[in-house]
């Protein structure tokens, strides 16, 4: 009888732990989401998605908001592309001087 009560108490405790774990939301990786049947959202770079705003104890600043890291990364890529374009512009600029000397002299 006493053993039966102990087993029941353990079962209830275990069930509570499982429920508590579920309430915390996991979020540590694809595996934990997969077991809950919830597809993991990822950024375009394949990184795990940033936790939803407001779900934690601290409200994120704008630069820490969801997608901010990806946005900054995208901005950096755009800036690299800008540098290349400016370099190409400089290359063209080197030949913009109207100089008659290359024309040569007609016979």
């Amino acid at each position, binding site marked *: 009888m006493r053993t039966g009560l102990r087993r029941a108490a353990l079962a209830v405790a275990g069930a509570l732990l499982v429920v508590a774990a579920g309430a915390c939301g996991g979020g540590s990786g694809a595996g934990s989401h997969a077991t809950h049947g919830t597809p993991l959202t990822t950024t375009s770079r394949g990184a795990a998605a940033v936790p939803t705003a407001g779900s934690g104890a601290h409200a994120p600043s704008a*630069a820490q908001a969801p997608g901010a890291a990806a946005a900054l990364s995208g*901005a950096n890529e755009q800036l690299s592309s*800008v540098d290349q*374009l*400016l370099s190409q*512009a400089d290359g063209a600029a*080197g*030949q913009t001087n*109207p100089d008659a000397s290359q024309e040569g002299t007609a*016979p």
Partner: protein
Amino acid sequence: MSRRLLSSAGAFVAAGVAVATLLAAPAGARPVPPVRSTNATTPSSNGCPPAFADLRSRGHAEAARRETTLTTLSSALTGAQDPWGVNSGLLSTLANAKSNLVALDQRIQSSCYPTREGLRADVATIFAGYRVYWLRVPQSRIVEEADHLGVARGKLASVAQTLTGLVGGNAQAQADLTAMDHALASFDSTLGTVPNLTSHVAAVPGLVPAQDMSGNVAAMQAARADLKTARQALGQAATDAKKVVADLKH
């Protein structure tokens, strides 16, 4: 007196040698009149090739050099994006110039020129009629530079929009973003707001070859000055944008 005697004797001896030579030579080997030369400077009777070979050769070399240059310019302009919408007209102009040069070269190589001056005038057209190096090269490169700057301007607008959503209450990032916006505005006031080219550069695609090139040169120099200012503005905007990114990472 003795000098005159010596001179007369010399003339007599020379005449004698000439007569002896004529008498000694067989009838069939009599000296013949000089054959008309076909070398570079002497025309054939009708001025057809190979007459004036030197001028024809020079004309071909100059035409071929320009054709190669025009191909290079077209290739560069085709490779650049066209944010201002001015490339197609200039590309068409370059293509026409090249095909006309090819036709002119063919005419120079195959036509009969009764006078050297006639040929010289056609060869001179390769220089003054096309102005490939004095006009077409700087003209195309100015448009190409404006193209690259215009595309870069579009990308920086996108970056500014992204950063605007990220700066939040970061004061330093806000200040750097404001500086970036000012630099972009400076670009727009210098070259125009894509796709509307409103600076001196706008006149460049329409320039045509001229005997007196002073007007074309002035137009292109003004465009170059605008491009230099615009380039500096975009460089500053890019630098400011990088500062904002760094501010936000701290």
